[in-house]
């Protein structure tokens, strides 16, 4: 057992080194932050980089074909598969054979049958069994309207059979390493057992990338946007008003809000009511948990996440930020208010640092409530100047940050050019909606093994219950078997939905609602991870992380109790050991076993969580490899998981 562990560790460190290199190259040169910290500020848009280059191999051949040829190719392959059940023959080989035989199915089949390489039983057996299994795939019937994809698996490349076809996996190289199979070494290795054949059924899937293109290609690009900022900056009002102007809230509802908020003496919050829905939030005029809403811009379909600004609700804000691609950092331009939120321990800084550490790189900054300073250009410039310096330091690229003057209450510069003369006089840039439209949608890591982090659990209709959360990586279809970690309980996906619209498949990046069966509701908790049973996530209560310490009032020592945030999970933990202090910019070890870690230091530490959690190495899955450490309601450090211990 312990030997296994060693091997795993070795694997890991090799890979981590490699990953460091790759990562270093992917960052622009004008990036302000030091190279070693870039990892903390990982760019979500690049998250599929490695998997992309993986699947290119086959795409490249296909890329040279014309559209009609591609269609032909697809249908040939499908026919061959029916004839041969060639699901174990690499897709690329099929492609090459078909092309070389000039799209003649008969000849291609002969070539394959004659090739000694494929004569072995393992490629061409089990025909019947596999065939019936593949038809269980529920997605297939659904996609019948799409031309070439028949009800046979299109990509043989997805089939995992131990290490037989190591370079044919669609998963990233890292996830193929023995390390990723560590939870189920038996299944991975014993490729000939019937159990494995059964498990294979799930694996016989479409190429996720292509499927994604097919399913979503027509739609507007989806974008998850979190709205952050100090309490009372006007986040909910700004977004509520924007939604109203976009017609997402009808006039009657708005009128109702206006009447009712007036009764409470809180008429200034009428737009905020669009997002603040609970009685408590409305009565107090404060957002407590993340509010959600859908809207569209010219080119994007946006899911809005309205975060609470109050310090006490940062845990909710973090769980919302974990789902976001981009962020709006709303600041209050009112004299004194901006200063409270920014200079004197307000949440403007903490929120910005948090979203950056959680992988958000694109930011728009609405300078709000400009009506209170008579649309003063000087005030706008003053705030922009202050924020620019800070945001750059926090790791945002200057070109990825846009400042927009606006007023959420009066509605200036939200969905159309401003009309206020004082503003028109000096501002000629885009309105808020245009800025949102200009955000780039990140690539979705759909080819990686499936993971979903649960951030809500509730009763569905009837006896079933639902979980919802962000699909971090991979895809999930109705009927799939999933594993709930850390408890390692299996469940079956009964149905899927995104924003109440039912789906048969969901992809990485989606905020999905999953109806589960075969599992008790009380055995599921927020922060649990649903994953592919064949490629389960790791489960451990002890791990090493490379952390960056923010501004702290007291230093971190060993034995320091913290609250650990990992996706939506919030769990007490202890910093067990300070392993080494690192140079912030070079990453080189400055000191072994430091006595304490002060402000702005970087270090490797060992963290012990009060109970096992589902997690992954940052190098294997960035989404599940990040942690935040908080103490007494203040974020003290952000970390990347570098080693899983137990």
């Amino acid at each position, binding site marked *: 057992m312990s030997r296994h562990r060693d091997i795993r560790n070795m694997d890991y460190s090799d890979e981590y080194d490699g990953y460091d290199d790759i990562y270093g190259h992917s960052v622009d040169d004008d990036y302000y932050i030091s190279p070693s910290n870039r990892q903390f500020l990982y760019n979500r848009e690049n998250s599929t980089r490695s998997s992309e280059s993986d699947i290119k191999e086959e795409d490249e051949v296909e890329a040279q074909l014309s559209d009609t040829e591609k269609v032909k190719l697809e249908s040939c392959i499908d026919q061959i598969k029916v004839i041969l059940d060639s699901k174990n023959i690499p897709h690329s080989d099929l492609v090459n054979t078909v092309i070389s035989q000039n799209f003649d199915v008969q000849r291609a089949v002969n070539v394959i049958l004659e090739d000694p390489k494929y004569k072995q039983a393992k490629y061409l057996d089990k025909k019947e069994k596999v065939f019936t299994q593949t038809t269980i795939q529920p997605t297939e019937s659904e996609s019948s309207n799409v031309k070439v994809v028949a009800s046979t698996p299109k990509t043989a490349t997805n089939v995992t059979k131990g290490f037989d076809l190591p370079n044919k996996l669609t998963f990233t190289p890292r996830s193929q390493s023995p390390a990723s199979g560590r939870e189920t070494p038996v299944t991975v290795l014993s490729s000939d057992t019937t159990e494995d054949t059964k498990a294979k059924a799930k694996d016989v899937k479409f190429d996720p990338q292509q499927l994604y293109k097919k399913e979503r290609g027509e739609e507007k690009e989806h974008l998850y946007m979190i709205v952050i900022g100090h309490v009372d900056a006007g986040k909910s009002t700004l977004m509520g008003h924007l939604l109203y102007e976009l017609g997402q809230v009808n006039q009657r509802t708005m009128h109702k809000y206006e009447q009712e908020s007036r009764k409470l003496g809180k008429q200034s919050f009428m737009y905020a009511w669009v997002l603040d*829905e*609970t*009685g*408590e939030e409305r009565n*107090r005029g404060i957002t*407590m*948990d*993340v*509010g*959600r*809403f859908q809207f569209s811009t010219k080119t994007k379909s946006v899911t809005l996440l309205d975060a609470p600004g*109050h310090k*006490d*609700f940062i*845990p909710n804000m973090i769980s919302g930020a974990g789902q976001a691609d981009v962020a709006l950092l709303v600041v209050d331009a009112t004299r004194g208010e901006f200063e409270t939120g920014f200079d004197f321990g307000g949440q403007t800084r903490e929120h910005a640092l948090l979203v950056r550490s959680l992988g958000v790189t694109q930011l728009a900054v609405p300078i709000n409530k400009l009506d209170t300073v008579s649309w003063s250009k000087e005030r706008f410039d003053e705030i922009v100047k202050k924020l620019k310096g800070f945001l750059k330091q926090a790791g945002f690229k200057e070109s990825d940050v846009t400042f927009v003057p606006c007023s959420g209450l009066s509605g200036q510069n939200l969905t159309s050019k401003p009309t206020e003369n004082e503003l028109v006089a000096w501002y000629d840039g885009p309105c808020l909606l245009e800025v949102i439209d200009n955000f780039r949608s990140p690539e979705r890591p759909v080819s990686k093994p499936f993971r979903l982090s649960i*951030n*809500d*659990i*509730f*009763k569905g209709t009837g006896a079933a219950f639902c979980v919802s959360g962000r699909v971090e990586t991979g895809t999930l279809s109705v009927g799939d078997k999933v594993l709930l970690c850390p408890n390692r309980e299996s469940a079956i996906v009964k149905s899927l939905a995104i924003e109440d619209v039912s789906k048969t498949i969901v992809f990485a990046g989606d905020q999905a609602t999953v109806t589960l069966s075969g599992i008790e509701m009380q055995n*599921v*908790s*927020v922060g649990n991870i649903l994953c592919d049973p064949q490629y389960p996530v790791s489960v451990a209560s002890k791990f090493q992380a490379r952390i960056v310490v923010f501004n*702290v*009032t*007291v*230093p971190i*020592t*060993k*034995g*320091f*109790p913290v*609250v650990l945030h990992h996706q939506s999970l*919030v769990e*007490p933990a*202890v910093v*067990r*050991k300070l392993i080494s202090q690192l140079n912030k910019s070079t990453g080189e070890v400055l*000191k*072994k*076993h430091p*006595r*304490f870690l*002060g402000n702005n230091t970087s270090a490797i530490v060992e963290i012990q969580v009060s109970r096992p959690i589902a997690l992954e190495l940052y190098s294997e899955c960035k989404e599940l490899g990040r942690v935040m450490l*908080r*103490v*007494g*309601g*203040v974020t003290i450090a952000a970390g990347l998981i570098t080693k899983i211990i137990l």
Partner: protein
Amino acid sequence: MKLVEKNFDKEGVGYVVLIPEESEDMWHAYNLISKGDSVRSTTIRKVQTESSTGSSSSNRVRTTLTITVENIDFDTQACMLRLKGRNIEENQYVKMGAYHTLDLELNRKFSLRKAEWDSVALERIDLACDPTKSADVAAVVMQEGLANVCLITSSMTIVRAKIDVSIPRKRKGFVQQYEKGLTRFYDQVMQAILRHINFDIVKCVLIASPGFVRDQFFDYMFQTAVKTDNKVLLDNKSKFMLVHSSSGFKHSLKEVLQDPAVMNKISDTKASAEVKLLETFYMMLQLEPARAFYGKKHVEKANEAQAIETLLISDNLFRCQDVKLRKEYVKLVDSVKENGGDVRIFSSLHISGEQLEQLTGVAAILRFPMPELEEDDDSAEDD
């Protein structure tokens, strides 16, 4: 604790007879008794008797036994000490050398003999028998879906109940599920309070949470109390105090105990003094690191230089099985005191004590900086 008798000779060999009177006394006893001591107390023993006809029957007899302690368990929930060891005194029912487990309970007299009574043990007796009682405090630290109902005495913090449920989040058009889940949660917390808090003993109930959870819960609880005419709650309403904490996890009790309003109300608990002192240590580490050290090696070196102003040491170090090691810690304590330093023995049952325990169990604030200590790289720290 009631001290019935104390009998030491000039070398410090001897025994004490004690009667534990309240739950905290069991904790003192736990810290007092070490492996190798002998303890005498009444107990129940199952005895097999054979009648003249040859049939055997077993019955329970009450007898007094003396054992040499080999193993000690402390059950915080039942408030009981379980001592296991060999019988060392001739007895009608139990053979010499036979194993027996003595249960020490509240109000059961026991005598304890040690080969050597050191200063730490003697101080523990003084502490245990101190008649000025600090008020017992109950604290409920909570956040949406999580609550810890704790009891805080001067040297123990015990979690009596933990409620951990998942509450659906607010979702478009489905606010009711959230509000229903929240109500059910509040009800569970309220039941836990009624079940675990004895209002005859507890002088103050702290309700701590981030946000508005505490206010909401408090309103819910007293609305319900009025509806159901719950006298216990209504009569004790003035004992409740609402304070801020950053989370519902147990360790945010630390923030609660540092709240000035709380410190005023429960002025004399050891718990908040310990929190404050540990905080002082950390502040020193931040501001003047060469005046704050932890770990046996560093602290001993600082002591050699007579530099220790305040020694923070966890009581679990004195419970250690290794007699030699215990002696070393006792020596450290004595020597710091001799040099005019202040010694604070932290209870490992309090949250600050838990943290100190994780921080090697021993830390010191120095009178003057000793940067030379920082230099000697301490890889022995690695455990």
